[in-house]
């Protein structure tokens, strides 16, 4: 359970540092770091996903609110009739998925490379 929150926090912190130096896939790397550190694939998956969701979704939401939804509605229309809120959701889910995938790679990678060191979940 603790690992869930640690995964979440690590993704948020690493994501927020990496975003200044890396493009969009920095969030995958943040998940990877969390996964490699915590090595508990299921908790890492859940925690990283939530962290990525909050990180990308939160940032999108803040910008959307400040903009009063002008742009998200228009871009949503370009994306086949989605609403502005759905664009926020899409961004959030994408962030979550990317962090999750990175987290799984990190966690399973650590377990595969260092099976003796990994703690039981």
């Amino acid at each position, binding site marked *: 359970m603790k690992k869930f929150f640690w995964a979440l926090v690590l993704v948020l912190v690493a994501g927020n540092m990496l975003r200044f130096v890396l493009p969009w896939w920095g969030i995958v790397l943040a998940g990877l770091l969390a996964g490699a550190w915590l090595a508990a*694939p299921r908790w890492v998956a859940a925690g990283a996903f939530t962290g990525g969701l909050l990180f990308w979704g939160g940032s*999108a939401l803040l910008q959307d609110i*400040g903009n009063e939804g002008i742009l998200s509605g228009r871009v949503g229309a*370009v994306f086949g009739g989605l609403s502005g809120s759905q664009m926020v959701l899409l961004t959030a889910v*994408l962030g979550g998925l990317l962090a999750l995938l990175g987290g799984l790679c990190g966690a*399973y990678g650590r377990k595969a490379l260092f099976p003796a060191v990994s703690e039981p979940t």
Partner: protein
Amino acid sequence: MLFQMRWIPFSLSLFCTVLALWFLGSPQELGQTRLPALGDFLNPFSGFWRNAEPANTRAMFQTAAPVELPGLTGKVEVLYDDNMVPHIFAENKEDAYRVQGYVTAQHRLWQMDLVSRQVAGRLSEVLGPRTLAMDRLVRRRGLTRAAEIDWEVWRQSDETRRIMEAYSDGVNAWIDQMRPADYPIEFKLLGYAPEHWTPLKSAMIIENMIDALNGRDFDLAATNTLALMGRDTFDYLFPQWFDKQQPVVADTGQWTPYKPEVFASGADAFSSIHRSAIPERRLPLSWQDLSGSNNWAVDGRKSVSGAPMLANDMHLPLKLPHVWYQLQIHTPEHSSYGVIVPGVPSIVVGFNRETAWGFTNVSQEVADWYRIEWVETGRRYRLDDSIHSAELRIETIGVRGQEAVVDTVPWTVWGPVVHDDPDHPLAGYAYRYTTHDPPQKEDLARFFRMNEICCYEDYREAIPGLDCLSQNVAFISRSGDIAITVQGRFPIRRYEQGRFLQDGSRSENAWQGFVPQHQLPTMKNPSRGFVFSANQHSTGPGYPYYYLGRFDASRGRRIFQRLSAMDRVSIDSMKSIQLDNYSTEAADALPVMLRLLDRSRLDDKAQTYLQTLASWDYRFDGSSTAPSLFRIWLDSTYIRTWDELDALRSQGTEVLYPEVWRFTQLLESDPESVFFDHKETPRLENARDIVTEGFLQTVRRAQGYAPSDLEWQRYKGLKIGHLSRLDGFSRLQVLTGGDGSAPNATKSEHGPSWRMIVELSEPVRALGIYPGGQSGNPGSPFYDNMIDSWASGGYLDLLLLDGPDATERILGRRTFLPAQ
């Protein structure tokens, strides 16, 4: 070893991750849509979310630091008013234009990039093979070369060079401070980065303006039609003068001293038909969106305030980002306000404290086609008694995702060979277009000085700088002068020369020269107290030079009628003319059609529609149903009449269609004419039959609409589309009245792109509005904020500020300092 259990989950996750990275990291084609790399695009820190501007603009300005701009010689302050219009206060002109480049790029960079690429034939570099045909055509029509030659000549003027380079440097200063996260959203969507601006790109945009306004000709259609119909029928259907119109400059006996050259007799028009294997899919010519405009000026005797007044509304395709951009330029010497074309320095239409000026299109044709007698196709040709070699211009067109395409364009002494497809009816013909000729080196400097004019003499000195941009330029000055000039480079032609395709093997078929400046029609302070233009005929039939071109036959008549009837013109009266939905075209045609209609063939339902039409006041008001019924009826009747022409068009022969005003005359004066017979039916119809059939068809069509959808504003359905054609960034179904035949010339994708009224009282009063917003960013609250107000006939007060200390209606300011 890899197949040990512990590697499997890792391999799977790694595989999924790599797959996701690949899918989200590259652009995808999903059916018709091209999606950008989604990872980049949706990333809240660098993707489209970054273009979501805070709605609280005031707060944004408060945190803005001064900008250090290389090349600036003094401090420049820019005040932004509550409509996001920048007011630039500079110590000298060059600094002002440098900052103009910066602030325009800040709001409209993608638009500037796209439009300059259009004329450069470089769309395919970023959009791929789908724009290859467009790029080839613009280059083969010689526009790219024309812009290159323009800049080669203009740069020889010191003043021009300094202004163009300062502007360009300003744009580049903006570009250089952007990171990819700051790029306009269209760059992100389409997946390319902005490149540096150059004065040549400004020249490209100027060429785009010229071609959009003056590039039309109907020579092929006219030649085919003459060959098919014979002279008598051709003249009967296509007279070149309509006597109900008032020309821009009336005949007052002023032409007597004009002695044009005596022309040698020349070759007759070609009596041959040019068929295309590619059937034309455009609408009949009468409906094509010709860009026109209205302007008029009223002198102090006629105005309530005693001060002269000017109105201008330019009719252009309505797009987003909007074609115009408002700004004010203030230096110690001059202060002017108006609209600019993004990408070009200076102010195009506007006013200062002493004068105001405005443009409408001159509808004269300035391009002709010449058949070349090839000795070796595309290489050597005969002219008089000698053989000439064509100059070969190699056009290399970059295509994204593919190898560059190389196109060889032969340039003859007449001009380029535009069409090399042997199936095209103009294959092998040379294109002679006024814009191909080099300008005078001071032209652009003069054009830039338009916004500094103080008096009539300045106006007359500046307007030749328009060169081949043919415009009716209206003018007022505080001292009380009003004037209008038909300004442009008009080829001197024999009677009907250039109306048809010509023989390019005889040099005697060349243009005899250009109408000299002092013989261009002009009018100053007429006794009637006003001047006006609405793309009607430039002059009466007495003018010694041949007028070739179409002309508007409806709007100008209404404007003339309204201005003649007024003797105390106010700003409200000027507004009421710009917004006037009354159509003289409808007022001419409807009574004739009602008289011809055989009412015995109408049932009760049809009678109700008839009642609506019979009680119509000829105004294309948005909430009214009668305008829609009228348009459907007129269209149906017209299309049924010209079925012979339709048949020709569907076989690939481009032909002329009679103007609506001529059609109305025929209905009235020659109802038994053979043209009204519908070829597909065995009986012989006349006008009465065709009009009645048309009405019955109108009733059937109208019944297919819900009553609210028959309201003119919905039936017409104005769409203001984004330049990328994405509906999501467009404004669909803008509800507003008006019609191409009324002074309020709003159509379904075209209309008054800028409505301006100026009164040179003390202080200057000016109103203006355009259907769009100052910002080109769909994420900005200023993207389309003026559309609704424009649609309901609103106007905004334009601010001609005195100094950078103003506070009323000011959202914020930005300071520019010389770079250390």
